[in-house]
């Protein structure tokens, strides 16, 4: 027994060693099985995951295309500047961080306000600028303290600049940061989403918006190897971006400037078109705004000023303002009479100074009337009675049918988005416009004032200029466009936006001649004579004064009535009358008489365009200094 115990114990121990050996083998077997599973069975999956960890595609944003006028004057450009940016999701306390930053970088309350606004509009993981256009010194000061500010960084970015500020602001438009709605739209389209990775700005209005596709360019990509903290370690491959195309406009910047200055502080619009191509030479809407304010996100203060102003500077009156054309409608009415055969040019009426229809008396603006009036004279003296009777004879449907062909009441198709249709009254229009059966009915009496461009008539200045240009081009209608060439920045190749004739209205030369005669007479003997005194070329024109507020009975007295209720002043023209190079429509809101307020503006535009004469005393509007030179903090 005594001897046996150790023996027994030893053999039991050896059994335990064997058990332990089995245990070890099973253990390692399990481990090896797990590694085989990970490294052989699931290899593809984990290899992909490792590559995804390692490789990051960084977008390289292309340079946005530039916009120049027809003579190559640069209207938009890009400059590179340093911005101080914060990624809100990576910062613990935004307020504290901004406070600390402001100790060594000039951060104004307006910068904070703008940042706050951007923050509300953006997603949290975006990096947002707190300050733009840092000076070299500020950059250096931040870099020295960078380690203290995780989530804050300096970025070199290209910024859009509009060197002439307010010049042609409605036509050119502006870019701004992509908002959530635009982002959603971009993300709907896979290709678009890929091309906008890294892009932060998008055209919001004007040409910047409508030619976004051309201006943006193609985003390049850099394949980089990144470490766990997301820092790029080395570049693996690079697809360079293709810069956006430049736009060369039909617009003449100097003409535009002269037109804008001619308005002074008055509200209104001017559209000048090249007849026979549809090229827009000038497109004015006043008051203007400074598109530079929008580029980095507009400050709430600036936005309030622009948005709450009674003058509504953000509205592009040229394409979105609808105004009754007043007497500028008359040449078109006369043309309609000739084309439809309702009246011959020689047919004359005797004008007593009013027209009675049913119980209503429609007054002419000249007490006692113009005597015997034929078509040419009706245009020259702007005889209302002639057109009251003409409208009555033609009837609303014939009028609206003819005016519709001239483009009234429908979009012209100009290359800026958001154009309004205006109102071309007709029986059908009224039926659609009103709900009650009683209101839907068209009354013959309503047709009378349509004849002098009043009543329901409401057209955009662009439509008016467009119709004038069609008349000037002998009835051939071209689609209006502001861009003449799309220029490939890499090859330098220019793609022309071809003038597209959209309709030939088949006007007869003898009819056109009668209208021309009347319109030329306007500026020699008629309502435009004073504005065009001493003119060196032949101008076909027509003044117009449109009622904003209808005065029952009594006579209209300009000075006694609230400025905003005064009549709109209008003027249309084309010149030289025998070989038109330019057609123009002018509208001055509440300007009073067209002859006094609108015609002189047209005169300045025509004088410059046809003769190169600049108006005396006009201050030149210089381009702003290049911000790259000054590093000025706005």
């Amino acid at each position, binding site marked *: 027994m005594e001897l046996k*115990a150790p023996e027994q114990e030893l053999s039991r121990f050896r059994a335990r060693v064997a058990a332990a050996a089995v245990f070890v083998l099973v253990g390692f077997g399990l481990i090896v099985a797990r590694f085989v599973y990970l*490294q052989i069975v699931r290899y593809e999956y984990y290899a992909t995951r490792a590559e995804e960890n390692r490789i990051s595609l960084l977008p390289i944003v292309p340079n946005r295309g530039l916009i120049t006028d027809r003579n190559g004057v640069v209207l938009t450009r890009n400059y590179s500047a340093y911005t101080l940016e914060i990624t809100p999701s990576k910062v613990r306390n935004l307020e504290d961080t901004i406070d600390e930053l402001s100790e060594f970088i000039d951060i104004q309350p307006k910068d904070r306000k703008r940042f706050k606004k951007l923050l509300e509009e953006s997603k949290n993981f975006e990096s947002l600028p707190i300050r733009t256009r840092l000076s070299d010194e500020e950059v250096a000061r931040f870099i020295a303290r960078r380690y203290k500010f995780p989530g804050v960084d300096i970025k070199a970015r290209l910024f859009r600049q509009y060197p002439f500020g307010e010049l042609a602001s409605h036509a050119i438009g502006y870019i701004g940061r992509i908002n959530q709605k635009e982002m959603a739209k971009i993300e709907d389209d896979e290709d678009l989403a890929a091309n906008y990775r890294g892009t932060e700005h998008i055209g919001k209005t004007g040409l910047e918006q409508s030619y976004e596709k051309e201006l943006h360019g193609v985003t390049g990509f850099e394949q980089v190897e990144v470490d766990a*903290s997301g820092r790029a370690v080395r570049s693996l491959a690079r697809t360079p971006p293709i810069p956006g195309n430049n736009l060369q406009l039909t617009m003449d910047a100097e003409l535009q400037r002269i037109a804008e200055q001619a308005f002074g502080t008055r509200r209104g619009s001017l559209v000048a078109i090249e007849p026979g191509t549809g090229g827009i030479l000038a497109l004015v809407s006043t008051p203007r705004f400074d598109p530079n304010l929008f580029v980095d996100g507009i400050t709430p203060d600036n936005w309030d000023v622009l948005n709450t102003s009674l003058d509504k500077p953000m509205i592009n009156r040229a394409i979105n303002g609808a105004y009754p054309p007043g007497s500028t409608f008359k040449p078109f009415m006369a043309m309609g009479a000739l084309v439809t055969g309702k009246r011959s040019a020689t047919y004359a009426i005797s004008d007593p100074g009013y027209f009675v229809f049913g119980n209503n008396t429609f007054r002419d603006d000249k007490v006692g009337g113009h005597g015997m009036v034929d078509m040419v004279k009706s245009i020259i003296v702007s005889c209302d009675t002639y057109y009251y009777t003409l409208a009555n004879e033609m009837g609303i449907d014939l009028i609206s049918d003819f005016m519709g062909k001239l483009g009234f009441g429908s979009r012209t198709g100009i290359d800026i988005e958001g154009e309004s249709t205006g109102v071309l009254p007709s029986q059908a229009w009224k039926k659609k416009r009103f709900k009650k059966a009683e209101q839907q009915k068209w009354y013959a009496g309503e047709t009378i004032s349509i004849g002098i461009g009043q009543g329901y008539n409401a057209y955009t200045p662009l439509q008016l200029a467009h119709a004038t240009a069609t008349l000037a081009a002998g009835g051939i209608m071209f689609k209006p466009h502001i861009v003449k060439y799309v220029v490939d920045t890499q090859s330098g190749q220019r793609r022309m936006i071809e003038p597209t004739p959209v309709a030939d209205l088949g006007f007869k030369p003898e009819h056109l001649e009668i209208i021309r005669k009347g319109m030329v007479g306007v500026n020699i003997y008629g309502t435009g004579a004073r504005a065009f005194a001493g003119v060196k070329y032949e101008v076909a024109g027509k003044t117009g004064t449109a009622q904003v507020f209808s005065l029952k009975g009594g006579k209209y007295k300009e000075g006694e009535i609230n400025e905003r209720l005064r009549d709109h002043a209008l003027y249309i023209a084309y010149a030289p009358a025998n070989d038109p190079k330019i057609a123009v429509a002018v509208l001055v809101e509440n300007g009073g008489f067209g002859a006094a307020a609108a015609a002189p503006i047209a005169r300045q535009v025509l004088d410059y365009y046809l003769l190169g004469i600049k108006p005396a005393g006009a201050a030149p509007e210089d381009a702003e200094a290049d911000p790259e030179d000054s590093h000025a903090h706005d």
Partner: protein
Amino acid sequence: MPTISLTDIRLFLLRIVRPLDPFLLIITLAIMACTYLVMLSASPERMGAHLTNVVVALTVMWIVAAQPPQRLNNFALPLYVLGVLLLIGVALFGDVSKGARRWLDLKVMRIQPSELMKIAMPLMLAWYFQKREGSLKVRDFLVAMLLLVVPVGLIAKQPDLGTAILVLGAGFFVIFFAGLSWKLIIPTGLIGIIGIVAVIAYQSEICAPQVKWPGLHDYQKHRICTLLDPSTDPLGKGFHTIQSTIAVGSGGFLGKGWRNGTQTHLDFLPERHTDFILAVISEEFGLAGVLIISILYCLLIARGLMIANNASNLFARLLAGSVTMIFFTYAFVNMGMVSGILPVVGVPLPMVSYGGTALVTLCLGIGILMSIRQSRRRR
């Protein structure tokens, strides 16, 4: 003037070499050579410190190997008592770092007494069973378990789950080799397996944030929960497991090549020179590298068990057996951790991971095995 003859040199070299078991030495050096290669890739800047550690550890190994096992026997009780006292000291006066109280500041040096227990525990238990040899009763197993549970509890409380597991493993294997009844082992093992399965099955319920686990810290619960589903915390605690698994899986059969591991070199892999060094091996040398390391460990363990088998007395047998199994526990827990089947408990890969303390402890273990083998052959 005494002349130094060739024989003298031979005798001198023999004195140095004699305590060393060539088999164990070769395996140890082979593992260390692998480490050298991997360290050169994962963390070349620590190479100098690592080589110093290696020299110190091999010296310790040689010193211990040269001692007869009887001397180790004398150390058992004092070492154990000292260890427990220090652990109590840590619990009362220890320094807190990273939410755990592990260090004791002795003014001259800061020590981590739990490390001492890794060796003191098997020594103590082997000594105890040796004393009770021939008259072993159930009561003795209860005493042994008490001797085991007290320090393990103190270490787990610090909290240091990794070391607690290693000490528990070391102690358990002594009791196991001493002949703990299978009737106790099998049910306990079954309950353990059922428990783990239950935890996995009811993962979402027990991992809900409001649920408190008795006896475990929140961070320990978190570790286990992220192991069960690393995606619940991909940037926090789950990051280690996810990135380590990606490193392992993307290595494939032959790996991406030495110094070409992207997970390793782009910092996706955390703790790449310490606890997760196996992920570096897996990524750069693939399954082949893992198999080589596993085979080396198996050989080491086989040799250790062989030494235990041939040891002269119960103390030596139990000590050799349990010391050998320490290597297994280390390797198994670390490999399981790296491949995402065990929680991240901070156990290094034996003799590969950077870190002086663990390396010295492990080489001391090798030294003990060599010493025991030596005593057997001398008889």
